[in-house]
């Protein structure tokens, strides 16, 4: 009988990560799309780092920071009373940072693509910035919102290097599907590996296909 725990963990991790990334990514992308400050290229470069760095490099630094001796890991342990490295919380935190550019870039492009005179028209109609964003700007960039969410979700599902470094493949806690496949292949259990791999494959393909179909529909309107 196949164990669904890793698949469930993968979905939980990706879902949580995406939700948190919306919360962080929307204000960050809005700020970047509006900002004309000199520090902006620096912030953008830092945000884009996870795109180019090998996951092992990020994972290594995360491991140092998340461990009991690391500043973040130590602080976390005093507040939440458990270790950050090798825990599910640690995986979520690592994934959020690792997938951040996949959320922020589409959203920033989306904000930039909404014509400026739409928000100016809204301001002149007496609407606050927040109301303008919620009712005028965000509805005008639905496809960017969808793309950002799906890319962040899919990228988290496909994560391997970082999760391996900071998660440590603990059954039921940090052993997500991608790690489970690696373990199964190492122990030569190709049949189970096939099942996991096929499920991930079909799942990812379905999501991406849906996104492209929906985006096509959004574009037509």
């Amino acid at each position, binding site marked *: 009988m196949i164990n669904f725990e890793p698949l469930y963990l993968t979905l939980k991790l990706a879902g949580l990560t995406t939700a948190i990334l919306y919360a962080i990514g929307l204000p960050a992308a809005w700020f970047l799309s509006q900002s004309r400050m000199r520090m902006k290229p620096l912030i953008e470069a830092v945000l884009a780092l996870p795109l180019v760095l090998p996951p092992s490099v990020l994972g290594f630094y995360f491991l140092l920071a998340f461990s009991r001796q690391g500043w973040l890991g130590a602080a976390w342990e005093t507040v939440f009373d458990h270790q950050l490295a090798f825990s599910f919380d640690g995986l979520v935190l690592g994934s959020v940072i690792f997938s951040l550019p996949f959320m922020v870039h589409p959203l920033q492009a989306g904000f930039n693509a909404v014509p400026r005179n739409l928000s100016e*028209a809204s301001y*002149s109609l*007496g609407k606050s910035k927040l109301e303008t964003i919620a*009712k*005028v700007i965000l509805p005008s960039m639905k496809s960017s919102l969808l793309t950002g969410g799906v890319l962040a979700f899919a990228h988290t599902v496909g994560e391997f290097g970082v999760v391996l470094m900071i998660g440590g493949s603990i059954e039921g806690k940090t052993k997500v599907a991608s790690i489970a496949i690696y373990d199964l292949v190492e122990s030569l259990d190709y049949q189970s590996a096939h099942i996991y791999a096929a499920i991930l494959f079909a799942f990812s393909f379905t999501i991406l296909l849906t996104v492209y179909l929906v985006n096509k529909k959004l574009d037509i309107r």
Partner: protein
Amino acid sequence: MIRLSVTKKLSGAEGPFDLSVDLSFSSESLVTLYGKSGSGKTTLLRILAGLEKPENGYIEVNDQVWFNSSAKINLPPQKRKVGLVFQDYALFPTMTIMENLQFAQGKKEQRKINDLLELTGLAELRERYPSTLSGGQQQRVALARAIIREPAILLLDEPLSALDQNTRTILQDEILKFHKRFGLTTILVSHDKQEVFKLSDSVAMIECGKITRQGTPLEVFLDRTTSNKFSFASTILSIRKVDCIYLAVIGAGNEIVEVVLSESDIETLRVGDEVLVASKAFNPIVVKL
């Protein structure tokens, strides 16, 4: 009464220049800012709307201070009661025509929206999305959206320049209709002389950020030492009687000319008629450019 005096540094195509404008006009008048693109007309409009901040000066609308650099007053766009109409309409694409108007209205008064929809002939399009409307229809919605909040000033930034001549003429009439019916104070940005002549009570001609001429359209546009001769397909813009003759103002292309008409001409000609104006050329004035 609207009084403004503002200065701001602008960067134009031919280098930086200073926008420096003093302007005052009475409420319920229709004032046009006329000038070439890049002369600062749109910036002046944006300054009035609170979308751009001048470096110095003041803006007072009906005794309310909107901007005063020495008193450090600068009302945000939300607090200024302006109705803004853009050249490209700027309708909210994700809302229907009805929703666009409802969003614009502060407190909900569905009856007022319905009245305005009837008045603009948009009632049947109320459930449609902006992208499915023609340019003229979209601009009508934009106009209705700007008016529904009963603005202290209606600002029109080249509202008709993206439309064909026919639609343009119809919408010029509508702008005039709304302006009078709702007692609006309107500022129009335009570089079309005929449009300016037809719509405005007064014109301020802007060149390189300064007002170079100001007055009625007749005073501003007819103040010239030569007038065009030869023949032009034209439109009669106005006819008035002076002593025993009649003077007609006609628009030919982008030119405005005043011609003399006799009593017998008047019987067949009306304002708005398309006419051919010809002049024999035996005494032409030729000036080297």
